[in-house]
């Protein structure tokens, strides 16, 4: 669950933007399961479909 701080929300999603691929395997990501569940658990909800 994201945490609301002063003017910011601290996300569950770890900031990996400065992590190289070489270092990525060693990075600990305790929140990984939360992010993973959101990404893969509900295939039917991936898409937003416009219909006539």
């Amino acid at each position: 669950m994201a945490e609301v701080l002063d003017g910011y929300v601290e996300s569950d999603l770890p900031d990996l933007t400065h992590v190289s691929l070489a270092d990525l395997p060693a990075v600990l990501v305790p929140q990984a399961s939360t992010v993973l569940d959101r990404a893969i658990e509900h295939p039917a909800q991936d898409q937003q479909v416009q219909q006539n």
Partner: protein
Amino acid sequence: MPSHMVEPRPALSGHRVSWELIAQVFAGPVDASAMGALWDGQYSRRLLLLKILRESLSGPAEAGNRRTLDEAWHILVEAEKHAPDVVRQILLYPSVGTWLVRAIRRIRGIVHDDVPIWVDMGYLSSIAVAAAVRAGIDVRTTAPVWHGRLNLPTVGQFEVAEDDSTRVVRLWAKDSTVFLESGDEIWNSVAVRSIPVRVHHSTAGGHTMRWTLDDTDPYRKFDSVSPPERLGSADLESWRRKLDRAWEILVEDHGDYVAEMLAADPVIVPMTQGGGFVASSSSASFGAICVAKPETPAAMAETVLHEIQHSKLNALLDLVPLQRPGPDRLCYAPWRRDPRPLGGLLHGIYAFAGVTEYWYRRWCSQPRPGDRTAAFHFVHHQNQVREALRALGPADELTEVGTRLLEVASARLDACDASQVSTDIRELAAALSVESRLAWRMQHLEPAADKVAQLAVHWCAGESFPDRAVQSTLRPFHRSDAGSALAGLLVARALDPDGQAIASEARSGEREFVDRGGAEAMPAFADRVREDPDDDGGWIGLLLSMTVHGGDEPPPPEVVSATYRRIATIGGTPPDPVTLVEWFSHR
């Protein structure tokens, strides 16, 4: 320690998302800096999923796929040392996101189909070779060929076989050229069989948009792996013209969206499927738009703007949740015939608030009252979002951020003044909203049988309508679609008031309603339900005819029709349907 095991490092903190970014996204158009923050979130998501995919292949049965992934990983690491921006760009390519989610789902048994799993797992090699080619590094490896094609995301495809075969090829990327091994150490360039990714540039008002037209990547569509469907030259030219004109519209009338459109770097996936499909976006593929070619440039512009709103909200949702943990209830979404989970409804509210503004501006920028298309779409979408907000009501499941989304969406709608839109268009749009709600209720809500029986007893006893609402239960698709042509006729009349509203499948009462109004159509609808009490389209038309222009809220159609059938069963003689509706309406 095995080679793939590594010394763990301290956990990283999460992205810090400013309220300013959230406010900007909710308000509509965002600047390049905000888009940069959303892209950063997407990059973290891709890296995390890549790490999870690699760690998921740990069992002995997965040793082969694990070796393939490890080899590809090492190539990516090398490529990143030479050209980090190129690797980031490839990993952020939309189809790579779709592939990544699919690959993890396959390992976990969430997705099953007949594509060999080694093809899915081997695709990281294709990604790595694409990175090697673009970074200019020299690698020899293997990669999967599916449907006779080797696909290198952002680079293009190579026709490796003339048939649709699926196999592994050994290849050599050297000096940004790809060679395939055709015998022991015999390497042939495949450049002559190259099918490059198509990019088209549209320029308007000094802004040049880069569109990628992806008609070949196997993971370009969101829900299946797809063989290439290369556009022919005439079709390609038609797409290019529509995109050019759409870009002109966006730049001329929606200049504040230009920065986000450019930063979205859209990938257009041309679709041919019918069944009412217009367009789609996916949480796995930021920036991609699957789209059936719209009829007009204005519709193309609307579609692009609409789908990029979904992409932005998807990216924000990866950073901050709108809902608290818990079950996702199903809701009425006026733009859909099926019940939608709350998360989907929030998406629609956000995207259609943007679409309402799109048509509002278009209407404001056109000579009035000439552009009925813009006026109708503006009012219709404004009604839809307002109705969605009203039907949703208080939503305790929402976070502070989610609640803010609804507040801002409501304010955005209020800022679009519909009072100058012609009365007939507003009435037709209002009728369309009521028809949509009645049809949805009829198909998905079921009243409690004992409550319906009590109502029937009251009616048979000659008593007045008991002033108690009957709660209906959501049972999706418990009845068939009513098959009414009313919605199509209402839209046709709104867009062309002097033309003949065409609907070959129109049934009795429907054309009368659109041409001459509810009072004229009511007898025909009443006859339909007398003849067939299960004629849901007849009930919808009857309720619409009796209430819409009076401004009354129609009684719930599923309760009225069920009570009618119940009375006919217990009383022997069916009631007069018009009198029954009046009874429900306390008249």
